[in-house]
């Protein structure tokens, strides 16, 4: 009680320190006056009376100091005093302050953003309760998770490890709620989806397992919060409304909670529809086909007490049951568990590796910034050694002086941290709003939470202490008498110091980043000009899905034929080809096992190869500029009544037939036992990813294997925007209820190039930051060494040294460090490129352009950094300099 009362009294008097000082002075004056009067009465002379009074009172300043320490919070008072001095010192050298603050702001901002993304992507991605026990079920032999509906039911009902298992598939539908059809990406989710995720609706209700009564029995919609917000403007009245999905009536049941955007990070579905309605949504009913693995992913919470290993062995025993029971459809049913948010390990592994690498790099940048500022700080402390010595001589404790230096360091780091965090916020806001793909609902909400703030604050304080610690040894070793006696100009020793090492490390990191970013950019340019097996330039893609407008059966190819004819009639269109999924555009691919003609037992393990499968119109190869190497392409006569035929690529021919010569005219089989004759062979290409190995691919005539998915490849020299408008008009004429997407083909490649592009951009940004850091580091060192050696250089010049020799003396050390650092960084960069080649197509440092680029960049950097110190060294006038001291 007493002490708290006293604390508040102290706090109060801390605030009113001035008035209190005044009061004490007055009291002391009065006290001494009264004592003087007394002494006068006792018969002393006036002077003596006052002298005795003062003596009796005791050391006035000591009393005042004691009084102050009783009165207020000495710590805070000293802090305030240190802060005032620090502000004054920093204001005296605005250049130093600006460089330090901006350097730190960049480093801390970069860390905050990278950590924010890491947090949103990996640490805290899904915004569902108890995400710790939520696992996705992926295949044991590869990082994928798709299941067929019957297999899903078996896994769900036979396992003893999960509370329950849910599944979903992503699909695109045509949504019509006011006569204006639009396309929307949705999740087809099992009825128990929301219950498995333990979510509560924001509005209305969710659908549940009890709503499912067989195919197409649950025409319900649950909206995602953000879609409800943007599309329905937070209208609470939408619950219960009936809208048209692919021309079928669906009832909106409710709205999912804010922050929940499905269970796949950066794929934000507009709404959720029960999976049993697959036929209405995707145009096919695969609910009873064990071989059709259309469920994108399954997941569930582990029961309390069940370990991952137990769950995996439980699932594997179900897997071996499935293998035995359904040998035709199920083989190699083994499983592993992974986080569902990034599609298990498929994206999760590379993303985790990439983000960890990025975090590591940004931490290195911060470390470099600290080393840099530390050496600048050390240099400043050395310049202030006379001041420090003077203060020591006057009785200041070393702790007090260090405290002053740390206050300065922390002030700078706090300013830098605040600025960096602000910049980070702006960037994260931009990232959250950014939709990199026009045709995918890909968006990543990077909302800084307590984790990010905490991290930024921690880094700020840690870096402040780190670079503030550089001059500590210097101050502790200061001998006031020596320094005041001698001149302040120290001798630059030839020894390798920590400062040198710090600078080399920093330059090496910078060179590493510069190397990596040049490698990434080169790889990106390569991939734009590599042989894709088609030519995306001067070609436009128009795509739609006929199931969205209710087409099925024989009406599908009829409609597609009319679409092709309509677009071909547009003036300036050279050719139009149809394909069910455009390579490198649609994201998804269809692949199928293929068997040699001689194979009778068509179980998956007997397959000769797994091949991409495309369905095309006769004109497609011409429109896509895919070279036909042998045989013929399809004709309009290859229809449902003609013998089944296929065109294959070289790789297919090599794998299944041994050679192209054997392949032409040969037969192969698909898992449904259809026998196809090879009528043509085309060049290899890229189908799913740019970085993929050469893959087999087969092309089937669309009249024999119809698909509602429709991509029109339109070859034309016309302006893409005009062409797009013309295509849209034609489509509207054919069917006004058909949502069509039109865009230039090479722009549509953005999805596949996304990884490389992101890698190039992030590395480029980090490289730029690293370069700036190195410049400030080299500059600081060179400038310091020149100013320390002014006298020596002056004497040399007076003795007739040449400009070259002077420069060598002044800057030789900094340049030598630059050389060593660059070499080390380049070597590290070459090693790091192995990691990079997983993301960026053809990323290789064994490329003269890369090597030359790095050397040029580092030279330029050295030139910029040493320009001013060199000018200063050359401008030395020995006469003036000698006169000075």
């Amino acid at each position, binding site marked *: 009680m007493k002490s708290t009362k006293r604390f508040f009294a102290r706090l109060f008097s801390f605030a009113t320190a001035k008035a209190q000082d005044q009061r004490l002075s007055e009291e002391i004056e009065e006290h001494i006056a009264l004592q003087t009067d007394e002494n006068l009465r006792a018969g002393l002379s006036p002077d003596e009376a006052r002298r005795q009074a003062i003596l009796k009172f005791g050391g006035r300043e000591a*009393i005042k100091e004691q009084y102050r320490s009783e009165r207020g919070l000495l710590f805070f008072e000293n802090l305030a005093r240190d802060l005032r001095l620090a502000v004054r010192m920093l204001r005296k050298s605005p250049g130093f302050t600006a460089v330090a603050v901006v350097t730190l702001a960049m480093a801390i901002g970069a860390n905050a953003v990278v950590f924010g993304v890491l947090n949103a992507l990996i640490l805290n991605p899904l915004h569902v309760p108890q995400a710790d026990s939520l696992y996705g079920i992926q295949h044991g032999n590869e990082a994928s998770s798709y299941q067929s509906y019957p297999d899903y039911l078996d896994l769900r009902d036979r396992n003893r490890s999960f509370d329950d298992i849910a599944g979903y598939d992503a699909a695109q539908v045509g949504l019509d709620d006011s006569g204006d059809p639009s396309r929307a990406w949705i999740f087809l989710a099992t009825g128990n989806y929301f219950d498995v995720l333990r979510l509560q609706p924001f509005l209305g209700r969710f659908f549940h397992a009890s709503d499912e009564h067989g195919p197409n029995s649950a025409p319900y919609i649950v909206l995602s919060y953000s879609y409800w917000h943007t599309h329905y403007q937070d209208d609470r009245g939408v619950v219960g409304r009936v809208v048209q999905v692919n021309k079928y009536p669906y009832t909106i049941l409710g709205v999912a909670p804010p922050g929940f955007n499905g269970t796949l990070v950066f794929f934000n579905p507009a709404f959720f529809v029960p999976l049993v309605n697959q036929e209405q949504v995707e145009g096919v009913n695969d609910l009873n086909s064990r071989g059709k693995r259309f469920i994108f992913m399954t997941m569930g919470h582990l029961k309390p007490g069940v370990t991952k290993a137990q769950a995996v062995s439980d699932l594997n025993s179900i897997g071996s049951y499935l293998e035995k029971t359904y040998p035709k459809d199920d083989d190699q049913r083994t499983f592993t568990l992974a986080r569902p948010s990034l599609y298990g390990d498929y994206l999760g592994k590379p993303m985790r590796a990439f983000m960890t690498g990025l975090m590591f790099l940004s931490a290195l940048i911060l470390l470099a910034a600290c080393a840099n500022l530390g050496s600048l700080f050390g240099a400043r402390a050395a310049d202030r050694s006379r001041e420090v010595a003077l203060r020591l001589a006057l009785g200041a404790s070393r702790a007090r002086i260090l405290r002053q230096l740390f206050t300065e360091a922390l002030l700078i780091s706090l300013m830098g941290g605040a600025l960096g965090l602000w910049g980070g916020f702006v960037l994260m806001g931009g990232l959250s709003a950014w939709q990199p793909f026009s045709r995918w609902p890909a968006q990543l909400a990077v909302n800084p939470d307590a984790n990010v703030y905490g991290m930024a604050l921690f880094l700020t304080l840690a870096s402040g202490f780190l670079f503030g610690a550089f001059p500590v040894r210097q101050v502790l070793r200061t001998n006031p008498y020596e320094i005041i006696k001698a001149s302040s100009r120290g001798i630059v020793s030839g020894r390798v110091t920590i400062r040198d090492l710090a600078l080399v490390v920093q330059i090496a990191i910078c060179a590493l980043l510069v190397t990596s970013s040049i490698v990434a950019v080169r790889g990106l340019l390569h991939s734009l000009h590599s042989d894709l097996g088609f030519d995306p330039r001067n070609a436009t893609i128009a795509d739609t899905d006929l199931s969205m407008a209710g087409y099925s059966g024989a009406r599908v190819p009829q409609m597609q034929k009319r679409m092709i004819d309509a677009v071909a009639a547009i003036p300036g269109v050279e050719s139009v080809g149809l394909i069910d999924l455009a390579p490198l555009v649609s994201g998804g691919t269809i692949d199928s096992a293929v068997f040699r003609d001689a194979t009778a037992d068509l179980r998956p393990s007997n397959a000769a190869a797994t091949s991409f499968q495309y369905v095309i119109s006769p004109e497609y190869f011409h429109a896509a500029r895919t070279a036909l190497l042998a045989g013929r392409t399809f004709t309009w006569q290859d229809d449902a009544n003609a013998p089944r035929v296929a065109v294959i690529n070289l790789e297919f021919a090599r794998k299944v037939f041994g050679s192209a010569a054997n392949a032409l005219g040969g037969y192969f089989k698909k898992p449904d036992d259809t026998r196809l004759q090879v009528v043509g062979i085309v060049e290899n290409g890229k189908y799913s990813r740019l970085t993929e190995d050469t893959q087999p691919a087969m092309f089937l005539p669309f009249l024999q294997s119809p698909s509602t998915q429709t991509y029109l490849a339109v070859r034309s020299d016309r302006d893409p925007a005009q062409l797009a408008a013309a295509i849209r008009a034609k489509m509207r004429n054919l069917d006004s209820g058909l949502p069509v997407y039109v865009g230039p083909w090479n722009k549509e490649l953005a999805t596949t190039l996304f990884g490389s592009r992101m890698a190039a951009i992030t590395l480029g940004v980090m490289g730029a930051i690293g370069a700036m850091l190195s410049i400030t580091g080299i500059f600081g060192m060179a400038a310091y060494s020149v100013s320390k050696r002014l006298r020596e250089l002056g004497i040399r010049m007076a003795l007739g040294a040449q400009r070259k020799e002077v420069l060598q003396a002044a800057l030789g050390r900094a340049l030598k460090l630059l050389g060593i650092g660059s070499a080390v960084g380049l070597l590290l960069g070459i090693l790091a490129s192995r990691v990079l080649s997983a993301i960026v197509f053809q990323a290789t440092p064994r490329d003269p352009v890369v090597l030359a680029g790095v050397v040029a960049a580092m030279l330029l950097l050295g030139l910029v950094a040493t320009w001013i110190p060199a000018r200063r060294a050359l401008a030395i006038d020995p006469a003036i300099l000698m006169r000075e001291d």
Partner: protein
Amino acid sequence: MKQKSDVPQGTLALMVLKTLDVLGSLHGYGIARRIEQISGDLLAVNQGTLYPVLLKLEQEGMIASEWGASENNRRARFYRLTKDGRKQLQVETQDWQQTAAIIERFFAAKAEDLS
């Protein structure tokens, strides 16, 4: 000449409280003089040391102060005991007397008393 002794920590505060209890409102100089007089000049006090003690007591709420006019009609700060201070004084007086009594008994004790 008798050796003057230092004032133990805390004792000065007790003296201040007792002085104010007996004499009522008093300024700093007055308190210093009274303590000097009562202790019979045995205590070597730099009068100045009184002020930090006064501040501490005031912050603890034992005493209160206000400006008033001194004997020679100048502005002076007058201190008086608060209710809390009076209570505290009673407690500390008791404690002190108890301690003194115990110490006295130890001094009075002879070897045969302890056997």
